[in-house]
């Protein structure tokens, strides 16, 4: 199977005054296209850190990440923005929606980000339609014009997933998408992800819940800063 993303000997540490905290001590990973991978590990084991590095939101101290054979360390400026905008969709543990924008605008934001003001006029209706479809699919049809702070946690997380999918990225990265939700809502989110996976979406999901991890097609464990399957 074709490789989607590959991590080679990733190391990441944080300096806390005089002590050094080694979070990732040489992570090696290869994830193929169309997989639904769960990353599990104890709290503080570096799951989020790893996911950030895979999504080019952070850089490792050493080691490299290859996205479809392209080394992320070699990406600069425009290329890097293109990668974050088009190639990956990131779902954060704490939703991270823009409070000033409505639900609909939040979902459309990545599409707006990559177009000029003029270009936007031609793309607007198409993007809007797609955003409607996504929100409809996640059961948020009635909440289009609400502000994020007017929604429940589960609703916000679904908006965040819709946002991550608007540009149809080949890779979806989700950091504990169910972490802050009760089990029923969490289950709904999981079902949605499974459905996406069924459609061929590659997903890497961080979780500390073994039950949720067992639903994935592959489980990766982070222990002592290294991968154990």
């Amino acid at each position, binding site marked *: 199977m074709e490789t989607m993303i590959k991590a080679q000997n990733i190391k990441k540490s944080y300096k806390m005054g005089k002590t050094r905290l080694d979070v990732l001590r040489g992570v090696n990973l290869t994830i193929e296209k169309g997989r639904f991978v769960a990353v599990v590990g104890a709290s503080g084991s570096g799951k989020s850190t790893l996911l*950030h590095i895979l*999504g080019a*939101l*952070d*850089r490792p101290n050493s080691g490299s990440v290859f996205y479809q054979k392209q080394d992320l360390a070699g990406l600069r*400026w*425009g290329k890097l*923005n*293109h*990668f*974050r*905008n*088009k190639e990956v969709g*990131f779902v*954060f543990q*704490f939703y*991270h*929606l*823009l*409070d*000033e*924008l409505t639900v609909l*605008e939040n979902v459309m*934001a*990545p599409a*707006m*980000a*990559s*177009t*000029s*003001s003029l*270009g*936007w006029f031609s793309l607007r209706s198409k993007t809007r339609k797609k955003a409607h479809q996504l929100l409809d699919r996640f059961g948020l049809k009635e909440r289009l014009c609400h502000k994020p702070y007017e929604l429940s946690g589960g609703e916000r997380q679904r908006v965040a997933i819709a*946002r991550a999918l608007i540009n149809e990225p080949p890779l979806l990265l989700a950091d504990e998408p169910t972490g802050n939700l009760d089990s029923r809502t969490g289950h709904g989110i999981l079902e949605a992800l499974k459905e996406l996976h069924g459609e061929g979406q590659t997903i890497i999901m961080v979780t500390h819940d073994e039950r949720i991890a067992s639903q994935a097609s592959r489980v990766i464990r982070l222990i002592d800063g290294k991968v154990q399957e």
Partner: protein
Amino acid sequence: MIKWLLAWRYFFKRPISILAITAVTLCVFIVLVVMTVMNGLVRDFKQKNHDYAGDCIIEADSLVGFGYYEDFIDLLLKQSYIEAVSPVAKGVGLLSGPGGVRNIGIEIHGINPILHSQTTNFGQTLHYQKQTVSDVFRPQYAPGRNGCVVGIDLMGFRKPSDGSYYHPDNPIPLELVVNAFPLNIKGGLQRSLDLVSTKSFYYSDDSHSGLVRVDGAVVYVPLEQGQILCGMDVPIKRISSIHIKFKKGVSGRASVGQVRQLWADYAAQNADKPGGDLFANVHVQSWQENRRSVIAPMEKEQTMMTMLFLMLGVITVFIVFVVLYMIISHKSKDIGILKSIGVSISDIIWMFLLFSVFIALIGALLGSAAGWGFLYKVNDIEDWLYEHYEWQLWNRSVYAIGEIPNKVEMDVLAVIIGSTILACMIGATVPSLQAARKKPVQSLQVNQL
């Protein structure tokens, strides 16, 4: 696209942008009002000095004056760039009412009223005889007698409230005695019959130039009589200055240079004649040079004001800087989100720049409108304050200001608005640069704390 949307939303959703706008509005308001009033005062004052002096002045430093002026005036009148020329005999003296009551120190200016009003704005400074300048030295109530024109502040016609003057319908019959100290050609007091020459004049009109030192000191008399009073009639006829008006459209600077050359040649030719040594004291000056001593302090004041208000501009930049800094540190999470969805650094900076331009534009607009409105009403406001609280910005019995200048100049306004926008953009650049440089993860974590 997203930069426009977010800049717009930030602008409307944040109470803090109202604070920033208020700060900008106040600054623009103050700067506009002060600049307008200050510029107006300086311009007005310069204009009055120009009106008073003409374009170019050939003047003797000493009260003795200089001679052989008639030929030179003929020479001047032959020049294509010269419109009119007026000789003036000046001296110091005392003015007293009938019976010797109240002696006031004055400057005597002997003029030819027609030439003088062709050269300077003299004719327009008159009250009764604006239209009949040639008759200005013939009192309307006694045309046969010697008339004089008195600086308006010597007459005490001034209303303290708004600085305006009142005049009776006709000039009041009034005999004024002028005592002068005639000087001989060596500069000593002339020893004729008396050390002081005295002559009665009849008040025929007053002159209102708007210059305190002129209106409060000068008494105009006919040229020949001025010369007699000041001892400038013997042994050679002398005057103190020649005022020159240039033709419209000629360069003042170049023309002054030409006159200077003409004068140098003429003085050299006549230096050997009796009294030729007096030429050494004579200077050819443009009106600006001639009136420098009074204009310069005013200009200094204006420069100082401009400096002070530049500082205000710095404070505006600082306020905008602080406001944007606060907004941006509040919005650190948003910056992280934007970066994580691939918004470029330049778009993020642009977003905050746009936001600051909105603030600048709205602030400048409100400030200009408020300033314009205030200036439009400023004279009414001042009158009202005087009527109710006897308070005046400029005490009209001291300052020669009729109305507070309130004409907003478009170029001043444009400069103010332009610099406001620039200032706000500068204020926004630093914090947005700083924010945009952070890694997305860093920005996202800050807000979780």
